[in-house]
């Protein structure tokens, strides 16, 4: 089975090779483990981009392979980030509080410690009590479990309801969008207990590694992200290469026909939806410690639409397409908005890319949809494969 899977998918090997080479190159050039040509801030950018690639391949599986245009996958990405963020904030604050209470004449009661941590974390948003959802925040193991469980359960419940009612097509897209909107509106409220609009911050400081430099921490996260991407890629390629993959792609092409063949379409869709949500959650849990802060704006509907944009530009239905799309568009976007692109002087008007990048992106997106439905990945296919 395993042999034939790789045999049928030489692209997996090529991808792994490319990723390994890239990772090694960055490691050698990094400040932490190498010659220092690549700055720590760029390592962070690259590490985050790898996480975005991971959620992009999840999106590709759910949309490109299964035909469900989910406009809500960033909700899972975000919940994964929140789950790990809660532990990071709690543990870091606990360390600070413990240090400050140490020198006192009378040892603190557990209640006093908990109150002090609460004040530290929630004082910023004008409250001091621990909401119930922070019950497991003191345990790394439980919170890591949450990274998988919360997005998974959310996807399972939502998917079960939606697929059971046979909500399909654009209706489903709008429904997933409503889901992520509801979640972000909920998190925007202070009463949600996750610090409202401020979200969770200071996540780049990993408890227990206070003395480790950010250069090293960001390199470690970069490497872990690369491994996660590789694992996710292999996992999805494997799942999609088997019989499962055939059924799923059958659902995409003609759902009714697959159903008539006796397959329980809803279960397949639910499985794909939930699996990709879990991977999205893991990607988020790796992303936000590198970004340093997570807040509800991250899971606003627009983020998930951009995810679809990446996948579409990269090329749907091919995993490497999603990776190319996510990496290409997000890096290009930061190059343009970061002022890296030179302004174009037209004489009567100067085109500033900070102002015009979104216009360019929007228009090129329309063009890709109209003229290159297979995206950049399709171009790749055209070059690699012999015309048949």
């Amino acid at each position: 089975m395993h042999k034939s899977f790789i045999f049928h998918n030489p692209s997996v090997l090529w991808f792994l090779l490319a990723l390994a080479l890239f990772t090694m190159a960055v490691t050698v050039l990094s400040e932490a483990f190498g010659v220092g040509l690549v700055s720590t801030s760029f390592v962070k950018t690259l590490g985050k981009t790898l996480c975005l690639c991971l959620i992009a391949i999840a999106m590709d599986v759910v949309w490109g392979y299964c035909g469900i245009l989910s406009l809500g996958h960033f909700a899972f990405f975000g919940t994964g980030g929140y789950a790990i963020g809660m532990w990071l904030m709690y543990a870091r604050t606990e360390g600070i509080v413990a240090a400050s209470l140490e020198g006192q004449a009378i040892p603190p009661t557990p209640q006093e410690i908990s109150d002090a941590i609460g004040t530290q974390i929630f004082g910023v948003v004008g409250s001091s009590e621990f909401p119930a959802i922070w019950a497991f925040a003191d345990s790394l193991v439980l919170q890591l479990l949450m990274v998988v469980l919360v997005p998974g359960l959310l996807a399972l419940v939502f998917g079960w309801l939606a697929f059971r009612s046979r909500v399909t097509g654009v209706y489903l897209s709008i429904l997933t969008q409503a889901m992520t909107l509801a979640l972000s509106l909920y998190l925007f409220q202070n009463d949600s207990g996750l610090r409202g609009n401020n979200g969770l911050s200071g996540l780049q400081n990993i408890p227990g590694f206070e003395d480790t430099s950010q250069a090293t921490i960001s390199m470690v996260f970069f490497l872990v992200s690369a491994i996660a991407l590789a694992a996710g890629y292999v996992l999805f390629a494997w799942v999609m290469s088997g019989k499962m993959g055939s059924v799923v792609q059958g659902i995409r092409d003609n759902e009714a026909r697959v159903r008539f063949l006796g397959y329980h379409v809803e279960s397949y869709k639910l499985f794909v939806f939930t699996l990709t949500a879990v991977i999205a959650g893991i990607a988020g849990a790796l992303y936000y410690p590198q970004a340093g802060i997570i807040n509800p704006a991250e899971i606003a509907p627009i983020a998930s639409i951009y995810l679809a944009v990446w996948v579409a530009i990269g090329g749907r239905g091919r995993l490497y397409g999603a990776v190319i799309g996510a990496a290409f568009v997000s890096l290009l976007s930061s190059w343009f908005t970061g002022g890296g692109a030179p302004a174009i002087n037209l004489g009567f008007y100067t085109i500033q890319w900070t102002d015009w990048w979104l216009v360019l992106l929007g228009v090129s997106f329309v063009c890709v949809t109209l003229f290159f439905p297979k995206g950049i990945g399709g171009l790749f296919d055209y070059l690699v494969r012999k015309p048949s």
Partner: protein
Amino acid sequence: MKLTTKFSALAAAALVTTSSAAIAQSCAEPIKVGVLHSLSGTMAISETTLKDTMLMLIEQQNAKGGLLGCELEAVVVDPASDWPLFAEKARELLTVHEVDVIFGNWTSVSRKSVLPVIEELNGLLFYPVQYEGEESSKNVFYTGAAPNQQAIPAVDYFLEELGVEKFALLGTDYVYPRTTNNILEQYLQDNGIAADDIFVNYTPFGHSDWATIVADVVALGEDGKQVGVISTINGDANIGFYKELAAAGISADDIPVVAFSVGEEELSGLDTSNLVGHLAAWNYFQSAETEANTDFIAAWKDFAGAERVTNDPMEAHYIGFNMWVNAATAAETTDVDAVRAAMYGQEFPNLTGGTAVMLPNHHLAKPVLIGEITEDGQFDIISQTKEVNGDAWTDFLPESAVLTSDWKDLGCGMYNTETKTCVQLTSNY
């Protein structure tokens, strides 16, 4: 097209050099000043103005001969109203461009995003906007107002001068209104206002359906008490709010409204003829009649365009930048620790008269102004206090009343005066 083409030309280029022949080249490299304001996204409207202000101040300083014999060079980056990107860009400024000081940020969440980076790399940030307090970082100077320099005096004015007995605290749902209203609720109760006489409401960013909320506020008057509104409503949600107020015929004589986030810029999106007499509290209004302010406005209009208005955070940058220049001159270096030590006690004249002083808690002593909205979208200053010392930790919430910040002598931003211990050396983010 956009009327600011003149410097949007500068905006995109990461490095902006404002050269001046007058500077003696006694140093090999110019001193770099980081400008970390959003030039795109939702906050661009407010922050682009501050970026322009910084460019103007740096240009003026270079014309005066630069700093320590060196030319100043602005390094402008665009964090695009994306909070995680603020942290990334701050790291880039400090490690790649190696700037000596950063002027930047508007929203509290962007500041919280930047704090860990600035503290890790021992940078120096000047933050120019009024904020909710409850924070003190060794590496940040807060040149905007703390709650006791804006909210508390405004509430005092309501209690003392307008005789308001019942309060509606309306805010946009984010950290500044939440924390400020928390402090105000406690403060009002300490001043004998019953908890039942305080109505609190939070609305989302950009909220536009205000009819019910305005009706709720009017209904507060049913027990015959004078009602007043304390508004921490942010940004363009104000437009719908004031339009609904005007439509309901609520004059400032019936129910006065004092806003903490409405300045000259925000009023330009509104017809103010129905809002005359409603109030705003700031440390600066464009209508302040001093010579320094006249010069500043003239220089600004000359630099940015005749139709531009000045506002409070611009004055904060003006004071902050000049204090930094003076501190660096006094320390004879731009080294962060040396400049920080020289900052304490720095004095610089306010644009509204009087002198701002940098306190050991990294806040300024500044006067508080209350203005009434006029028909031409400006403010008529009707009350101006003496300089008020900015307080990092409010005295009105029990858990922060015991805290104090003193980076000069105690060397701690979160010092518990009861247990006499330093809670933490980093800031809470």
